[in-house]
């Protein structure tokens, strides 16, 4: 514990960041204008509970400097890696909220930022070659993560998983697609506030996901949607093993056709 506290102190002025701990807080994001080429700017957010400023840049959804964010993630292990001037959160998730914040930009102050690399979770172009899955085709499950209180299909995260699901359904000429959408409606205390998702968001998520299938050519009558309040967290690779975001998902089950 002492060791971890020292790491935290190294990285920031006050408080201690516990490596590996799953954090959740509300904050006003600050943009740091680092320049290592395109998409290299830094996003920072201070946890009001500890005063620690975290580096939330690696989240698939980037912040908006006019609006509050819900930050989720784990404190990264390597304190020497500090390209932005904050304790690095890994598996970071940022949800942009409908709440105003003071717009603020910090200069680079010597921090290099991160050079952009194409994330692993990216949708392949239509002109890339594509092989059919080997037979026998079996039923497969897919999980699609969402930002808090949002039904937007997150670029280079949710779109990647949803594209895999839709492609599989097309490849195996799905006879049935079952969509079950969840909303994290049970209030939890975040930065001293009771935070819960709107129940209606589960249905919007279900409908969005359905539209992805039908717009790509899966017949409407094959696609079945349901929605409900989330009860048990099921951390998995789609949510980078984070607990809270695993309540905001859509489950898809694809049954192959003949």
């Amino acid at each position, binding site marked *: 514990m002492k060791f971890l506290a020292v790491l935290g102190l190294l990285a920031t002025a006050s408080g201690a960041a516990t490596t590996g701990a799953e954090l959740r807080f509300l904050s006003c994001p600050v943009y740091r204008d680092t320049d290592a080429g*395109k998409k*290299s700017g830094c996003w920072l957010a201070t946890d009001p509970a500890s005063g620690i400023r975290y580096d939330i840049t690696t989240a698939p959804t980037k912040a908006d400097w006019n609006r509050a964010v819900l930050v989720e993630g784990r404190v990264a292990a390597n304190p020497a890696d500090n390209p932005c001037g904050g304790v690095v959160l890994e598996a970071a998730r940022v949800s942009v909220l409908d709440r105003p914040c003071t717009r603020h930009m910090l200069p680079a102050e010597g921090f290099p930022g991160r050079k952009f690399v194409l994330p692993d979770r990216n949708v392949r172009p239509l002109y890339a070659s594509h092989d059919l899955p080997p037979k026998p085709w079996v039923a497969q499950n897919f999980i699609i993560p969402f930002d808090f209180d949002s039904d937007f299909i997150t670029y280079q995260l949710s779109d990647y998983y949803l594209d895999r699901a*839709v492609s599989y359904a097309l490849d195996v000429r799905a006879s049935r697609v079952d969509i079950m959408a969840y909303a994290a409606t049970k209030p939890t205390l975040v930065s001293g506030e009771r935070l819960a998702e709107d129940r209606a968001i589960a249905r919007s998520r279900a409908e969005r996901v359905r539209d992805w299938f039908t717009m790509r050519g899966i017949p409407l009558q094959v696609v079945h949607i349901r929605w409900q309040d989330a009860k048990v967290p099921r951390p998995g690779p789609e949510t980078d093993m984070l607990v809270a975001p695993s309540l905001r998902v859509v489950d898809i089950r694809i049954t192959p056709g003949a």
Partner: protein
Amino acid sequence: MAAFNFRPMMWPIAAAAILATVGIAQPPSPPPDRWWKPDEGRRFPAVLDYENDYGVLRTLLIGGPIETRDHAFFRAIGPDGRACVTCHQPADGMSLSAASVQHQWQAVGPRDPLFAAYDGSNCPSLPQQDRASHSLLIDHGLIRIARPWPPLDQNRKPVKADFTIEVVRDPTGCNLDPQWGIDSARHQISVFRRPRPVANFKYIEAMGFAYDPKAGMPLPVDPDTGKPVSGNLMADGRVLSLQSQMREAAGTHLQFMKAMDRKDIAQILDFESRLYVAQQTDRVGGALEADGAEGGPRKLADSPAGRLGSQGVAIWSEFAAWEKPAAIVKDGSAQTAFRQSVARGARLFRDRTFLITDSAGITSPVGFGNPVRNGCAFCHNMSQMGMDVAPGQVDLGTTNQPFADPAPHLPLFRIRCLGKPHPHYGKMILTSDPGYALTTGRCADVGRITLQTLRGLSARAPYFSNGSARDLRGIIDYYDRRYDIRYTEQEKQDMVNLLKSL
């Protein structure tokens, strides 16, 4: 604005191209004008060159020439005597330059079908003999586009908009007109837009990905075919296919109430799909495909379309060879300097980054961040073409206050968002053209305009959908102001030279 001059060189070039393809057969008499009138019956050659302020624009018609007599693109259809070619002129990169409009007004006046009351004047109810009644077309190259309010969806059903629209200023009188305005029986909103180039459609229709990341959705589906489409047509994305564009053009610009027949549609589609347009020669830099460079339309015609420059052929790498000193030492210093400048401009276009702020489509709702550091090639990302591989509706601020340049000649609308406020502007927006929002009915889309092709720019000033950039320098200056880029004078010159050469 560039003056319209008839340079002595111009006709020899066009005529030579025509003669080259006609061979020794009866040569058509040299066209009296670079202007293509409806029903002229000229032959459209396989290679057609026209001079402009910076050099020569080339149009390629792949697969060989066509006779335009009785061709649906060139035939006057409808009561106004107009044809498609009236607003999509070969010498103007298959768009329409304000300079050409001015020339037609001087040479022919209000009788030219270009100035037809319906959309070739500020409002059909105005006295059509007066120049002032056509000022938006003559001075800014703008055509009146009447959009239904509330918007209609692809099945012509009203869309429930999440905003209201009021007229703040109506210099043309058309938005408050008892016969043509919002409150008239027509319930129309008049906005004023530049004709978009009718060429290079392999690219404009290309689908690079199955999805539109800006919307977090699959590509839009054309209701006529049930198939996905690129979503890159028209400033406001209101039509999804060239077929439905034709139906709309016939009913509006041509005032032709009969449906176009299948033969006409097939003929126009065939013509559109074979046309490639780009600048071929620069007056100072010489041939744009010389010494290893790959400018001009040939490369466009031969390359696969819809590829992301960031993952394949880098955008404007057409001019990479000119970065190497060996390629550029020959013809004296002015040419060398120009070529080096173009190559630098291409690099700046790709690599020079700045903070992109409050630009819906990029900074919302998709999570690139607001702001996001990136360059011209972020939005203009398609190899060879410079449009957006994804459906390209982005709010650059060209029509929305506070970013838009002052435009007292244009209507001004007040938008009130009824539900959620706009992610960047709040509850109320002042705009001269709501753009994509006139199609979707969403206040979050106000001012989002579909990116155009960047080829053949030299031939078709002014720029941006509302004509707000008078010349190429005006485009660069707008971006410099809008995103606080702080280009040096040399960098601005390099960017302008690049744009000239596309």
